[in-house]
């Protein structure tokens, strides 16, 4: 066979595998095996993770069973532990957080995705929201502890009592620490998620749809109300659920402003407890397997709730993006 000058220097290897080439292919198998092993290892870690949450809770699960969820008492002295106050506090504070963050977050998302008039504000605002997401929760807690609680005690709470005091929600004395303050803190903390996710969902609304609406003579507000929001509804629900998942599990900042009392009160001014804040607050002083076990039981409940909320949210978001028309 005739060969050009360039190839002359190199003797072609035979096409049938040589030992050197086999080694190279063995490298492929080893590398793939290594990557697969790492993937399996992470599944293993996740399994250990769940076991590690479950095992230490066992003493309390054995003792209290499902009655744990309906017991209002949390009394380390008498060794009676019930999750109801913390469960209630978690749900109430998260609900307040979402109720405040939802309209603001949706509005901000509409601005970032839709509003053209003040376009120069878009960059800085996106940046500010991203910045907020990066601030550690203990720093937000510190700020809330020293700045927000006095503000709530001296201004916001009295104002609410005066205007909406006929509702049981806004009655009673307020010392600044309690459900409402914790709810405001949670609102601040979930706002970045709310804004970022809703913005992406709204941006995914096909351009042709909104243009069609505007071309029919609808105003911007009418287009938002009758075209954009209905279209983005499922995705926005997913965003709310993911925000809720974050709010339910937020620990440190809430612990610093919730007041840390195992009570159930109708008034939002009242001190209370949340699942993670009981853990954070009492863990170091918990002695005895039952007390510790009850704390871990709370932790387990918290994790199961957040997993449920997150999975639901992801299924919704996935459905939304999965059924989205590719392009118009």
């Amino acid at each position, binding site marked *: 066979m005739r*060969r*050009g*000058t*360039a190839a002359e*220097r190199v003797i*072609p290897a035979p096409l049938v595998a040589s030992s050197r*080439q086999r080694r190279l292919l063995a490298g492929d198998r080893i590398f793939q095996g290594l990557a697969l092993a790492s993937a399996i290892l992470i599944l293993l870690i996740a399994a250990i993770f769940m076991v590690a949450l479950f095992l230490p809770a066992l003493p309390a699960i054995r003792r209290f069973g499902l009655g744990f969820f309906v017991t209002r008492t949390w009394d380390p002295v008498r060794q009676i532990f019930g999750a109801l106050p913390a469960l209630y506090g978690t749900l109430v504070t998260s609900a307040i957080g979402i109720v405040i963050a939802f309209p603001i977050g949706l509005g901000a998302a509409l601005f970032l995705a839709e509003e053209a008039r003040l376009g120069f504000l878009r960059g800085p605002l996106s940046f500010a929201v991203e910045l907020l997401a990066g601030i550690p929760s203990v720093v937000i807690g510190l700020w809330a502890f020293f700045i927000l609680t006095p503000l709530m005690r001296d201004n916001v709470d009295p104002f609410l009592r005066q205007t909406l005091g006929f509702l049981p929600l806004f009655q009673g004395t307020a010392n600044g620490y309690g459900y409402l303050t914790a709810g405001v803190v949670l609102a601040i903390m979930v706002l970045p998620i709310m804004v970022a996710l809703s913005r992406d969902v709204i941006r995914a609304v096909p351009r042709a749809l909104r243009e069609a609406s505007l071309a029919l003579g609808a105003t911007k507000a009418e287009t938002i109300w009758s075209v954009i929001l209905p279209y983005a509804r499922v995705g926005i629900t997913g965003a709310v659920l993911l925000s809720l998942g974050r709010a339910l599990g937020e620990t440190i900042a809430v612990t610093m402003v919730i007041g840390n009392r195992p009570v159930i009160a109708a008034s939002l001014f009242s001190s209370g407890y949340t699942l993670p804040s009981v853990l954070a607050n009492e863990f170091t002083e918990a002695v005895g397997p039952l007390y510790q076990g009850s704390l871990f039981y709370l932790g387990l409940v918290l994790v199961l709730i957040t997993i449920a909320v997150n999975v639901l949210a992801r299924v919704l978001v996935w459905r939304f993006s999965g059924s989205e028309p590719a392009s118009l």
Partner: protein
Amino acid sequence: MMTWANMQADVAAPTTHEAEIEIKLDARHVNFFYGDFQALQDASLAVQARKITALIGPSGCGKTTFLRIFNRMHDLTPGTRATGEVLLDGHNVLSPDIDVINLRRQVGMLFQRANPFPKSIYDNVAYGPHILGWSKQQISEIVEESLKDTGLWEEVKDRLQRSALNLSGGQQQRLCLARALAVKPEVILMDEPASALDPIATLRIEELMQELKKRYTIVIVTHNMQQSARVSDFTAFMLMNERRAGEVIEFGPTDDIFNRPKDSRTEDYITGRFG
């Protein structure tokens, strides 16, 4: 010209032809499947050494699919299967005991879009030789030689350590060619190598092909009939059949295909009646 008619009819016995004809790559009755879908049906092609063979046809006719079988690039797509034979110097590259790594070393490839690695110009060309474990001295000689072979040396010799991504589109494609040449292949497969280039850069690539065919066997896929007519020695015309599987309709010297097509479908395509 009887030779070529014979070759088409009797691809199983190409070695019986005159001594100066050397068949480098010989595809025989190749079928190709994506899962249940058959994308190629009974495709045969005898590629002569140190000539340029072009695959033409309307888009979707399976020419790129056919090309990628020659160096087993289809292995990368899960669920694909090729049957039949593709002989490289008499070895069937489709057989399971073939050394794919070495096959690809001998059958290089140039892609539709220039795809230089995000590395320096030097490292792009040196990558193949580096994998083969050649010495530093050897590698630097080969880098220079390959860049000279593609006409890039004078343009880049002062900035070999700069990122390859700073080059123009045409330069990038020639760099990719140099990268392919650096491992000393015998066959170079080109998948519409000029489709993303401007006319001047395209001309440059075509001139290079004429230069390179003195030493290498080239198979090029192109959707551009003029290009095929300009550069190739042999042309295969492919078409989708009624079940959407690609077939080789006619294969022969480029001159014959364009001026004296035997099949009416080839003639229709050449004269622009469809495609």
